[in-house]
């Protein structure tokens, strides 16, 4: 990359933002934009150096013909001998006594709840012959409505993780733990707790967010037995700032739920509500409902103002980059604009408000931060025009005072009318405050804490290093960690108690008023583990013998006495219980006090305008769609899932803007030292277009030092930079020092992999062929065919490629499978990618293999930028096998391993494939994946061949081996299942009965699948939509994936 970059645009100039051009200059990465020789080389070398290095005869050793034949024979003999002991795949044996609930070949489904974060989304778990093989969203759940995030989708692998703890462990010295028995562990822990209780020492239970009413009751019961017991709860990605600001605003703890689907204007302030902020699945659905080209409703308009570049920013109609610490000032300026200048709202007569707002001015702010004046003015107009239909979303990580100012702004512009009156956000147990945690650590240091129990939590990794928690832990006599995998906290514990995976456990969860979400085990425990609640129950009642049913009975009893009577049902409890377990949801008639009410401006004077923008570097500690707070670090699918913005896999990094990189004299893969106060951490650099200058964006959750073999030592622990009493918020620091460090570290981004312009015929194709088609929503309203007409015009220029089809067309009179992807709805979150990997037994290959372009995921999400590196507009496009009618991969296969079916599928016969890779070479979309190795064997010492992981496999999908090509099959196994049902029921196959894994997972409902010939089907409507187009349709391969062109709801740019 050229650090001078003057040929692109002026550094720091935002004036080019959202400039409409007829011919967007699409670029996929800075390497491509700056014509980096490395990228050019990679484009011309599809399979990488290792695959195409020519044989150098001169470098070969001299070998006689006889010796060659002898070695060949010996090799053949050894191979034959080796084959005698081919990997034991076990025996297939029938049931002696078939369980009643199992019908061979037919899946069962169980409704449950995901415990991967505090959102508690409803899940539907598919089991085959007793084995859970897929986790999807529960369609009956009112929050996630059948959809699930990347972590929820990938969580299935955690159940079968071979490095899960299988037996209780003990160590008196808190290191080198040895196996013990549950009885022994219980006896000693109960003794320690009793002793602590009688000597007046504290017993501390440290948990994550508590969403279970039954668990809360269990804590209460436990406190009756051990009065010295105190419960602490924390969450790395928490909602504290938002909730505290809400309490200051309204005096209420219960927060409103936002009806984003009713919003016409959304202003996202450092908010990634489509990506990593809380409740992203629900918000993605709601947002996508406002971008539906089918229902004829007006599009919403999304503005994003941010220092980082988030998925929300990439999907915004207008995006402004602004230092994060200036966002609060922007809100105050907007308040000034509406309350003081435009005399909006009742606050105009409130002197507490007017006296504070008087000192802010929007015009000066625009000039100070060099913002695009027109965009800001359009924003103000939109907020004014759409009173009651506009909403301002503040990011989770923003300061409490910023949230307060945003609450006030929503009161002023009528955003409060979008607060739901049906349901509210409730908390079962408030998170502990900094003061409470501080007091706990002080007590631990002074020997006043006798027992610490980490209840499925990892404070040693999550707590700010200011607490010096690990040192404090050493001074506690008995430390117990209840966990599925070893972690940093268990490493300094006396007892490590293995707990059930979420798919083995019972529970109830309440995050909103009006319903409970139920959790039930779909499989009996695989190992000698226990439910974490049952462990507490046993500590409360040590005399009782543990049974697997113990917590189930406790939960049921609590429901029978505390919740069932209020349900107002005429059914008996037993039937009600079975019914709610079946549905995964229990609705209750409850109405809490309205969350909205009189807005209190009392705190205003001392509260707003607290965050002052500085000029030092800002460090943003971000969430991610992969590891969460680090609890998914051992999940290979998530490690290998490209970051939706940067496309980097297997690492975190410090993202910096192009200008900042130039100023610091650094480039991607260099190392920088980031210093905040007395804390210093070194990160690899990734130069990311669109970031505000002097903003350093780093993802939390990486850098685990103690976890399973997949995640250990991957990435850098950015959490060690967190302060316990931060000036702005736990995740924003504007006083960082940054300097270049020595050395480099290679980051791997998949963005430049599988480029589709590697040969002269298709070179620079994205500029000429409309791979991405986009336009303005206003143009679409005027002329629904505007993009098609534009395309037709362009096509005329494409001779000689634009010829007649070379083959005779099939008429496909029966079923004709096809897919459509609506680019207006797709946010690029990656749920489809993970769902596809789970459904289709796709292996994890590891960082080194990804580096060699060998990632195996069947869907990739291509990212195309247009505009300047400072103000890029992004387009995200899921790319998978297009199942072309005239598939160029088929006619080059020498063994006819890839052929076309009569219902329009481009099929693969794996056991016929000899691995020539001609098909991949000839595929214009670069969606074929080759097994260069038996990746299950190759990755991490055959980790994926562990006994337990073989239980994860979908039995309907062949597990591919080395030397075989593979690609998207349109979930052929699901089509076959429908075909089988149709045959059994004596009816015709119905396309709308089939859904693909990616379609099921998509939280934005962007993917549709079905039979093009089915009258009245959704897919037929999409295929014939005015915005529908096919990628590279000019080359006449007749793809069967219809993309719906992206519309941006922007104003027309006047010259």
């Amino acid at each position, binding site marked *: 990359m050229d650090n001078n970059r003057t040929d692109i645009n002026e550094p720091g100039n935002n004036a080019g933002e959202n400039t409409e051009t007829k011919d967007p200059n699409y670029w996929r990465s800075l390497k491509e934009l700056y014509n980096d020789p490395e990228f050019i080389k990679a484009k011309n070398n599809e399979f990488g150096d290792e695959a195409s290095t020519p044989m150098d005869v001169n470098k070969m050793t001299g070998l*006689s013909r*006889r010796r060659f034949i002898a070695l060949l024979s*010996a090799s053949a*003999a*050894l191979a*034959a*001998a080796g084959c*005698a*002991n081919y990997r034991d795949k076990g025996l297939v044996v029938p049931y002696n006594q078939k*369980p009643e*609930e*199992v019908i061979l070949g037919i899946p*069962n*489904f*169980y*409704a449950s709840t995901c415990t991967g974060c505090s959102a508690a989304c409803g899940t*539907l778990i*598919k*089991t085959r*012959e*007793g*084995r859970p093989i897929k986790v*999807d969203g529960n*369609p*009956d759940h009112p929050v996630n409505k059948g959809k699930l995030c990347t972590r929820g989708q990938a969580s299935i692998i955690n159940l079968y993780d*071979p*490095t899960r703890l*299988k037996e209780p462990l003990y160590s008196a010295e808190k290191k080198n733990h040895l196996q013990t028995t549950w009885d022994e562990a219980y006896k000693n822990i109960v003794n320690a707790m009793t002793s602590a209780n009688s000597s007046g020492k504290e017993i501390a239970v440290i948990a994550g967010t508590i969403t279970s009413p039954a668990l809360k009751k269990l804590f209460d019961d436990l406190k009756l037995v051990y009065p010295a017991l105190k419960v602490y709860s924390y969450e790395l990605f928490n909602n504290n700032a938002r909730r505290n600001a809400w309490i200051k605003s309204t005096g209420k703890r219960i927060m409103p739920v936002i009806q984003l689907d009713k919003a016409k204007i959304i202003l996202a302030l450092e908010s990634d509500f489509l990506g990593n902020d809380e409740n992203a699945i629900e918000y993605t659905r709601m947002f996508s409902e406002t971008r539906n080209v089918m229902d004829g409703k007006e599009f919403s308009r999304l503005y994003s103002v941010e220092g980082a570049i988030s998925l929300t920013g990439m999907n915004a109609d207008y995006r402004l980059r602004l230092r994060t610490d200036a966002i609060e000032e922007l809100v105050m300026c907007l308040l000034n604009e509406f309350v003081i200048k435009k005399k909006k709202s009742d606050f105009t007569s409130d002197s507490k408000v007017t006296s504070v707002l008087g000192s802010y001015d929007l015009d000066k702010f625009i000039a100070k931060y060099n913002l695009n004046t027109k965009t800001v003015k359009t924003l103000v107009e939109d907020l004014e025009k759409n009173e009651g239909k506009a909403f301002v979303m503040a990011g989770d990580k923003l300061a409490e005072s910023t949230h307060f100012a945003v609450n006030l702004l929503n009161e002023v512009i009528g955003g409060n009318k979008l607060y739901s009156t049906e349901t509210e956000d409730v908390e079962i147990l408030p998170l502990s405050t900094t003061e409470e945690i501080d007091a706990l650590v002080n007590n631990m240091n002074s020997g006043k804490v006798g027992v610490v129990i980490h209840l499925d939590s990892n404070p040693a990794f999550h707590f700010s290093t200011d607490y010096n928690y690990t040192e404090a832990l050493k001074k506690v006599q008995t430390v117990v960690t209840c966990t599925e995998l070893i972690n940093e906290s268990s490493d300094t514990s006396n007892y490590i108690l293995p707990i059930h995976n979420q798919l*083995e456990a019972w529970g109830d969860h309440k995050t909103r008023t009006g319903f409970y979400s139920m959790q*039930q*085990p*779909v*499989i*009996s425990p*695989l*190992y000698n583990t226990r439910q974490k609640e049952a462990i507490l129950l046993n500590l409360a009642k040590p005399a009782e013998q543990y049974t697997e*049913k113990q917590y*189930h009975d406790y939960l049921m009893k609590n429901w029978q006495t505390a919740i069932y009577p209020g349900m107002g049902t005429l059914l008996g409890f037993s039937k009600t219980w*079975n019914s709610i*377990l*079946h*549905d995964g949801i229990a609705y209750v008639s409850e109405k809490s006090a309205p969350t909205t009410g009189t807005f209190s401006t009392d705190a205003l004077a001392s509260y707003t305008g607290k965050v002052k923008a500085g000029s030092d570097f800002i460090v943003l500690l971000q969430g991610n769609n992969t590891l969460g707070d680090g609890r998914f670090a051992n999940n290979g699918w998530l490690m290998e899932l490209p970051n939706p913005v940067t496309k980097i896999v297997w690492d975190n990094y410090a993202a910096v803007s192009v200008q900042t990189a130039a100023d610091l004299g650094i480039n991607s893969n260099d190392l920088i030292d980031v210093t905040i106060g007395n804390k210093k951490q070194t990160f690899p650099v990734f130069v990311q277009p669109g970031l505000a200058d002097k903003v350093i964006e780093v993802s939390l959750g990486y850098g685990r030092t103690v976890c399973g*073999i997949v995640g250990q030592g991957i990435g850098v622990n950015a959490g060690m930079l967190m302060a316990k009493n931060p000036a702005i918020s736990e995740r924003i620091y504007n006083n960082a020092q940054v300097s270049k460090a020595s050395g480099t570290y290679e980051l791997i981004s998949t963005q430049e992999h599988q480029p589709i312009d590697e040969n002269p015929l298709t070179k620079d194709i994205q500029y000429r062929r409309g791979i991405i088609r986009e336009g303005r929503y206003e143009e679409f309203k005027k002329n629904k065919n505007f993009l098609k007409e534009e395309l037709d015009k362009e096509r005329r220029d494409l001779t000689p490629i634009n010829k007649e089809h070379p083959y005779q067309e099939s008429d496909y009179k029966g079923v004709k499978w096809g897919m459509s992807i609506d680019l207006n709805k797709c946010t690029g979150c990656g749920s489809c990618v993970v769902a596809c990997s789970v459904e289709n037994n796709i292996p994890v290959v590891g960082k080194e293999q990804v580096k060699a372009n060998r990632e195996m995921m069947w869907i990739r999400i291509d990212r195309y930028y247009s505009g300047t590196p400072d103000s890029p507009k992004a387009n995200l496009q899921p790319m998978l096998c297009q199942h072309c009618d005239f598939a160029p991969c088929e006619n080059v296969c020498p063994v006819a391993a890839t052929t076309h079916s009569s219902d329009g599928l481009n099929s693969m016969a794996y056991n016929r494939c000899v691995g020539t890779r001609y098909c991949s070479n000839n595929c214009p979309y670069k969606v074929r994946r080759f097994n260069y190795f038996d990746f299950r064997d190759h990755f991490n*010492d*055959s*980790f994926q*061949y*562990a*006994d*337990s992981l073989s*239980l994860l496999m979908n039995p309907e999908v062949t597990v591919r081996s080395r030397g075989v090509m593979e690609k998207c099959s349109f979930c052929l196994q699901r089509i076959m299942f429908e075909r089988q049902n149709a045959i059994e029921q004596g009816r015709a196959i119905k396309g709308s009965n089939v859904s693909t894994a990616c379609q099921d997972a998509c939280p934005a409902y962007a993917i549709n699948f079905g039979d093009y010939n089915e009258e009245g089907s959704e897919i037929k409507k999409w295929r014939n939509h005015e915005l529908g187009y096919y990628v590279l349709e000019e080359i006449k391969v007749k793809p069967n994936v219809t993309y719906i062109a992206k519309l941006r709801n922007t104003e027309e740019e006047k010259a």
Partner: protein
Amino acid sequence: MNSNNSGEKNKIKRRNFFYYIGAAAVTALVATKVPFSLFKKEKDSPQRTSSIKVKENPYAVKRSSNNG
């Protein structure tokens, strides 16, 4: 020049050839029959987990389809 004589000095005797073949066959037989796994150092690798019993939880309530 007769090309058949070019490698005369490298040729092995017919009898030795059969000795070598026989030795190779015996070696291959031994290699496949000797239980080398007995000499392998036991280590706690993930593959060595004991066989896992899969059983549905008797108290869970199933659905017969993903539509309810």
